């Protein structure tokens, strides 16, 4: 608890200068420096959970995300539907994919927020994947690294 609180207090005080320096270095180097590592979080969730997941991520300060309507199956498999008396199997079920790129330190919190808010406890709740990100660029300003996300 104490550590957590310290962190919260310390981050805004210390990281401002660090980030600016890092940003400067990054711009010079053209790659993400050691202080602005980023993670990409991809979450496949049930479509009706999108609102809750978005709110949960906003609550921990995530400022942006990309969502897409996707189809797929896992252990849940497909299901059977019926049209004009003929049955057919739907293998790919509709899901929502959320993609967000966050600074390293925020990744665990974001994953936890997604897991908690997307959970129904039933099969088909989805999955979360986390991967490293090499670089991020804001097109408008050419900022690079985690200040671009």
């Amino acid at each position: 608890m104490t550590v957590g609180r310290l962190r919260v207090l310390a981050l805004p005080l210390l990281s401002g200068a660090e980030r600016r320096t890092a940003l400067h270095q990054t711009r010079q180097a053209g790659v993400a420096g050691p202080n602005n590592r980023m993670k990409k979080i991809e979450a496949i969730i049930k479509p009706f959970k999108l609102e809750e997941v978005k709110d949960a991520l906003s609550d921990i300060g995530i400022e942006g995300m990309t969502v897409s309507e996707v189809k797929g199956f896992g252990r849940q498999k497909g299901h059977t539907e019926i049209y004009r008396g003929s049955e057919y199997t739907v293998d790919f079920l509709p899901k929502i994919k959320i993609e967000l790129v966050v600074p390293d330190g925020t990744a665990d919190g974001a994953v936890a927020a997604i897991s908690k808010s997307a959970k129904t406890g039933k099969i088909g709740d989805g999955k979360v994947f986390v991967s490293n990100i090499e670089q991020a660029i804001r097109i408008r300003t050419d900022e690079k690294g985690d200040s671009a996300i």
Partner: protein
Amino acid sequence: MKIHSHFKLHSVLSYILVSVLMTGLLVMPALAQPEPAAVAGAVAEAVKEAADEAPKYADMDAFAASPGYAVFTTHNLWMMIAAALVFIMHLGFATLESGLTRSKNTTNILFKNTMIVCIGLLTYALMGFNLMYPGDAFEGRLIGFGGFGVGVGSGTEVANLTDTYNAGYTYWTDFLFQAMFAATAATIVSGAVAERIKLSTFLVFSTLFVAVAYPITGFWKWGNGWLNTMATPFYDFAGSTVVHSVGGWGALAGAIVLGPRLGKFVGGRIRPILGHSMPLATIGVFLLWLGWFGFNGGSVLSADPALVSLTLVTTCLAAAAGGVAAAMTAWTVLKKPDLSMALNGVLAGLVGITAGADQMAAGSAIIIGLVAGVLVVFSVLVFDKLRIDDPVGAISVHLVCGIWGTLAVGLFGALKGGAQIVAQLKGILSIGAFTFIFALVLFLILKVTMGLRVDAEEETEGLDIGEHGNHAYPDFQPMAEK
């Protein structure tokens, strides 16, 4: 899962119970009421007398000053409104057919439906109207023709544009109302052959179907041809046979000659091909239902208050009964309350009541609608079993329920009786045989001359791109100039 299915079974059973009870409550007292024979007969007599005793006016001004001017204007106004209502049915067909087919064929379906109205109106003006209504000289014949074109010559205004022409409408209203009907028959074919027929071939077929086949059989009945002058005349009030079965026979011939859509029947199994927009399909059915008030209500051929209001009630009740019956049949037999079947059911009820909408008591109309609603569901299943692919159920709705509705005139209502049943069968069989053979031969000729079907690649890709070179839903397509 178990609880869920229990709940469904329970709700289905209770729904059936409620609907049976409600139908019983509705039908029983309605059945007890006399059929509207007396009313219909008296009105028809009065209209006939009015026509016989139609005054001759010196000129149009004399007509405008005559006491009958106001009531004639009322009749004629209703007939023009009815024509406009029938016109809106074409939008209904367009939306219904595009909704029940795949999005890659939407431009093609809409194009066909647009062209059919245009072609139908033009050919009807060119020859259809005079082939269907050639005049008294051809009474009781097999075929007649009153010459090309439509028009009211100078000096004949009083004869054509007053109640001298008809107690209910002018020559122009007559043409307009009948022309709106004509294109309907060809539009029915469009749904059954959708998603695989070559556009150019379809347009040639439609032109000949609406310009030649429909007016000839239409003449047999409505033009006072042989079916209308039999000892017991064939009766088809607004066209269960003359319009809907005719379209249905054309649809059947087309679906047979074309063969099923790729992927519909695979390895001895029926693979459903889902419609892409249930909202569009539903809008279509509501538009058709609305239009049917003009289709049947206008077929009274005047604004006669008693007969028009009765007709609108029987029309509406049969549609409602058809919808309920089809929905319940699908729910019990097919396990699910299938929306597309319920929509087909509404149309089935409408097609069913069309032959006798002015001859039925409310209770009979409900029974006719209920039977049509059950029939249409089983008919769709049977045509699937026969490997006849009809994407929108046009054959089941218009042919099967058109036959049922025509027969029902002999079974229910003011005209019921053995002689009428025989007359109805004569009409169904003769018009059916002529139309089916005409359509079959025409499709076969077109198959060897122009080619009937798009190639497999185009069918897979979609007719929107293949025939028209664009998408109906072009989202996310960057449009760069070439």
